[in-house]
């Protein structure tokens, strides 16, 4: 089964005076355990596409199958459940709950997933260990460095063993060295079998992925395996 099957998706924002067509027909397939980077200039629709893939938003038209399930017409609560069980989100600005410690931040998706305290502890501790923060488990976000915060966010994203991990410019707020460390975490997750989609505008970051998609004006401009050039058929 394909991890992801997107067919001719559009997204139009209706503003007071104009219509913004953020996505104008995007078709994309992803196999299990693929590792892709999405690149493109600012305003090209990268975040919009990520939000649709991450079920935070619904497309204006087109079809979207996530692991064979049609999610393009689901209700808010159904989408919340999909996000909870199948999606792991990593944001540029970390988006941790400020008053909660590392452990609670990481176990939160499991609470909304209805897991018992014992199960949550086991899974959350394993996820925190994977990102190398076991010694910071009781720290609050403001007691951590930027790189550490992003590691917490990654642990939270992978704690529910999602079908896809989505990262929208995960290194955008980090210095180059820390960014490289975070990319190492993603590489490890991919090696462990996870499917990863990464938005970035830095070529060095995109190089970690195995496939790069370039967006321009809400359309796919190119889709190529890294290192080997493939002209897009459109």
């Amino acid at each position: 089964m394909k991890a992801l099957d997107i067919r001719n998706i559009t997204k139009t924002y209706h503003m007071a005076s104009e219509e913004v067509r953020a996505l104008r027909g995007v078709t994309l397939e992803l196999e299990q355990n693929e590792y892709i980077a999405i690149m493109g200039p600012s305003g090209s629709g990268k975040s919009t596409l990520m939000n649709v893939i991450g079920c935070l938003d619904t497309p204006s038209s087109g079809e979207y199958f996530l692991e064979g399930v049609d999610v393009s017409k689901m209700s808010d609560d159904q989408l919340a459940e999909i996000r909870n069980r199948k999606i792991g989100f990593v944001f540029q600005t970390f988006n941790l709950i400020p008053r909660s410690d590392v452990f609670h931040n990481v176990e939160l998706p499991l609470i909304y997933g209805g897991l018992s305290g014992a199960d949550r502890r086991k899974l959350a501790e394993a996820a925190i260990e994977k990102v190398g923060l076991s010694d910071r488990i009781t720290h609050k976000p403001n007691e951590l460095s930027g790189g550490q915060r992003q590691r917490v966010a990654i642990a939270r994203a992978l704690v529910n063993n999602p079908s896809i991990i989505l990262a929208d410019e995960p290194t955008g707020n980090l210095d180059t060295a820390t960014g490289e460390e975070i990319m190492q975490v993603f590489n490890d997750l991919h090696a462990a079998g996870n499917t990863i989609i990464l938005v970035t505008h830095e070529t060095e970051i995109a190089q970690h992925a195995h496939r790069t998609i370039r967006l321009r004006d809400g359309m796919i401009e190119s889709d190529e395996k890294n290192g080997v050039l493939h002209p897009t058929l459109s």
Partner: protein
Amino acid sequence: MRYLYELRESLRIALAAIKANKARGVLTTLGIIIGIVAVVTTMTAANGLQNSFKESISAVGSDVLYVTRMPWIITGNFFEYRNRENLTLKEAQKLAARLSEAKAVNPSSYTQRDIKYRANLMEAVTVVGTTDKYIRVSNALPEYGRFLIPQDVQYKRNVCVIGSEIQEKLFENTNPINKRMKIGRYYYRVVGVMEKQGSAGFFGGPNFDRQIIVPITAFIKTFGGANRSFSISVKAPSQEEMADFEYAVIGEMRKIRKLKPTEKDDFSINQMNTLMNAYNSVMGVIVMIGLVITSVSLFVGGIGVMNIMFVSVTERTREIGIRKAIGAKKRAILSQFLFESSVICLIGGVIGLLVAYGVTALINNLMMPASISPFIMAVALLVSILTGVVSGIIPAIKAARLNPIEALRYE
């Protein structure tokens, strides 16, 4: 079961949010506090009043009819009653003779006199002139000594039976039996003390503990009887026959008064129920006022809490976005804010209960026996939680409906 973890998380967040904004929370609960104090004290006071009133009323007996010149509770035209003839002792005797089925028929007359014992004085004490049968139409018994006996009435003896409050105050709790005291200008000898009956006297109800009972013959001899109207107590054969018996009493009284069928009754029949009903309607007004104060302050308090909840939702917009992004459903966000508003109001309710507890203690010391019942406590807590839910619902729905992307972008 799985929702339980989610609910516990909601409660956790709510408590943390309240803890982080203590001062703000307490301030907004002021309206709730006032509302709860109002509802608890009115309900407690109403309860206390009712109990003490019922207690003293019960001493009189609900199977007794009271034939009087004027009704106890005057409704309608006062002048219609004013021209009525006095009820005389002779009429009382005639009524007793005709009502053979009655358990007892007893005439009484009332006056107010200052009473004295040595240097102690009590002003305007109710003096009841009656017979030995009084004890059969009222449920009270003497605590010490004896009650009036037929010979007291027959020989117009200057003897009296006093209420417990008179023993306390006039005799300073010493033994009053066979002591001579002054009622108005006349000496009477104390032969008995009635048992304590409890009082509703501060609220227009009768205070049987502050009255003196004397033989009706001595009463007429010393205080005069020519222009007095007597009240005739008639004890029904049984509680069930009260209604029929009332018709019998009216019929016999009309014969005694020689009324034509077209003429209206020129006397009144009263029961303790009549008094109870009048009392209940007064009580209804008190409770109404209490309820109005309560609802106004709860409304104002609720508006305050709603405002604070809107602030709380706005402050947490980004957090709501994060929670939604990782899978929180609408109900999780909804319950988070409903918990917050209910707990705020519940805290207000508990503070209100504590204040009401103090007020009740004060009422207890100054006015009458009163205590907050578990039922009132439960009502107060329930009302405060309900206020929390009602005032939190709109902000909570707003939070639950937030679009996750927009919420995440909120600065």
